């Protein structure tokens, strides 16, 4: 079995495993399109978080988080439940604004602009920073209307343009072939995995540059999960993706860079191979090897 997996590994991975002196985890093969040894410094940054602190009322849940997400790459946020990774993700499109009594300090730069500024237009921000949730959230409308929702609220009325957009987004989300003959049917009738890909297509329809994914596959069966993972590999050619996941195998498969959160602190961040084979922090190693979490 091990040898079979070995054959699937890319040369780069084999090199990484051979060269890293303290391999703590056998890293599964990456999905196509993901280079886990990417040198981040070579890339322009899509998101730069600096000195982020986050509070629910009096309760501080993020402490001085600094993280740079490179353009057109996948960054995985891992860590035990309640470590603040989802909270961090949700600050990137200011979804936390919707929760009463939350407060955030520090800055998040996207395209050189601090999106935490009060003057920032969150509607515009969220159009450019799309989000996919843990539970698939199709609106109780037709498949077409779901994908066309974003452009429609943004004022697009032209049926032909919408139809083109819906088709291209469904194709990008690898759903087109399955649903092209029943675009008018209710999205609620799709399977769980299809619903989640529909939600990805819907997020793509607003033409974002960044996609945030909050455990997008945790409610799905293994087959659907692997389709989503393949999709992430395809999408990262054009989009910057930040994904929160509980599943470390998944993080290691789909991400260029991995960030480990623990108790509200960003413990360690680095190329995925490095985090999974030779983490510099003891905490990271303990978590990755399953001592807690």
């Amino acid at each position: 079995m091990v040898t079979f997996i070995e054959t699937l590994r890319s040369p780069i991975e084999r090199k990484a495993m051979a060269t890293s002196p303290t391999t703590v985890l056998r890293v599964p093969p990456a999905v196509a399109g993901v280079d886990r040894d990417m040198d981040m410094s070579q890339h322009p940054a899509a998101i730069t978080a600096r000195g982020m602190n986050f509070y629910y009322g009096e309760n501080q849940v993020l402490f001085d988080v600094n993280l740079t997400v490179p353009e057109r790459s996948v960054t995985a946020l891992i860590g035990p439940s309640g470590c603040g990774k989802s909270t961090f993700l949700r600050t990137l499109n200011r979804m936390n604004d919707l929760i009463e009594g939350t407060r955030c300090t520090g800055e998040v730069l996207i395209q050189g602009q601090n999106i935490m500024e009060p003057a920032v237009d969150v509607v515009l921000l969220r159009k450019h920073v799309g989000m996919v949730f843990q539970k698939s959230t199709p609106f109780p409308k037709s498949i077409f209307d779901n994908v066309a929702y974003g452009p429609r609220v943004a004022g697009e009325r032209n049926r032909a343009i919408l139809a083109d957009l819906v088709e291209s987004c469904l194709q990008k989300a690898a759903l087109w072939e399955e649903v092209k003959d029943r675009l008018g049917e209710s999205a609620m009738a799709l399977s769980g995995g299809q619903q989640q890909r529909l939600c990805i297509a819907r997020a793509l329809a607003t033409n974002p540059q960044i996609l945030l994914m909050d455990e997008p596959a945790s409610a799905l069966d293994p087959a659907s999960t692997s389709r989503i993972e393949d999709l992430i590999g395809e999408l990262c050619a054009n989009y910057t993706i930040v994904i929160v996941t509980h599943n470390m195998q998944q993080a290691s498969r789909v991400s260029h860079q991995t960030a480990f959160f623990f108790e509200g602190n960003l413990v360690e961040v680095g190329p995925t191979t490095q985090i999974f084979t030779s983490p510099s922090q003891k905490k990271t190693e303990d978590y990755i090897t399953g001592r807690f979490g």
Partner: protein
Amino acid sequence: MSTPPLSVTPQPSDVQSLKSVNFISGSDSTIRRRLFLSRVFAWCCRIATYSALAALVALLASIIVNCLGRLNLSFITSVNSVDPAEAGILAGLWGSFWLISLTTLMSVPLGIGSAVYLEEYAKDTWLTRVIKVNLSNLAGVPSIVYGMLGLTVFVRMFDLFGSSAAKSKAINLLGIVKIPLPLGDIILAGALTMTLVILPIIIIASQEALRAVPSSIRTASLALGATRWQTIRHQVLPAAMPGISTGVILAVSRAIGDTAPLIMIGALTVARFCPAGIDSPVKLLTEPQRILQAPMDQFTAMPIEIFHWAKQPGDDFSPVAASGIVVLLLVLSVFNGFAVWIRYRTSRGLKW
């Protein structure tokens, strides 16, 4: 390491050029328009909500302005009169008192009993389903239809005993009370009718309260060897009591204000006497035998008197009607204050 930035080099046509965006609000005219629309919509909803408050204020203000100069102590110590300056609500007050007391006495055990049966005993048979569907339909039947039921079944008793005016037959109870047959337009008939009106409300509220009691309480009690009824009597009902009493109070307040069924059964609109002649609480103590006679007497009720005054032509009686409304609303707010108090008290005590 000199690996290329991406392991799979995308085709140039796939790569979307990053268009730069200005996130500062107001930079995008479409979004500016949408946010404006959103704000206008929010204001419309806010205005709709607060117009309900405005209606309430206008309603109370119009009543208070109308009752000024007429509402005084003599208004609640005298009976109705053709002279607006002398008309009072005493007869209606006592009529409502008897009516509501009897209604409560009958509807509360019946209502709670039904709810306990449906929630704790009933199996999912066709009969149970019929009862449950029937309950929600009954709650939507206009109260005036109950009035027709009361008129035919209680007041006239299907004319089985001859005309109600004759009151020829009667059941004699303990030598003190005579229950006429058919009942005729007496308080008992009104209370029976009103019981049926509010029964669905009490049952539905009690069912909800019983459903909110965690089944662990029942299991625990049964595990200690208690019978089903002991479990309900000593564990489930006390736990559900706050919810049940809130429902009962709301139902009874509805009965206090409901007029149509009473008019249908032929309650008096103009009555210059109090039922069984009890016109002060003192008489309840000094002449207790009258307490049993009162339910067999004819009556009027507060909302009926208000209705009568409100539809008098001209403005002579509008201060009287407004004063009656103030008294009615005061009685209602005492009841509802009680419900709020129960809710408040229990929200700090029992919590699951």
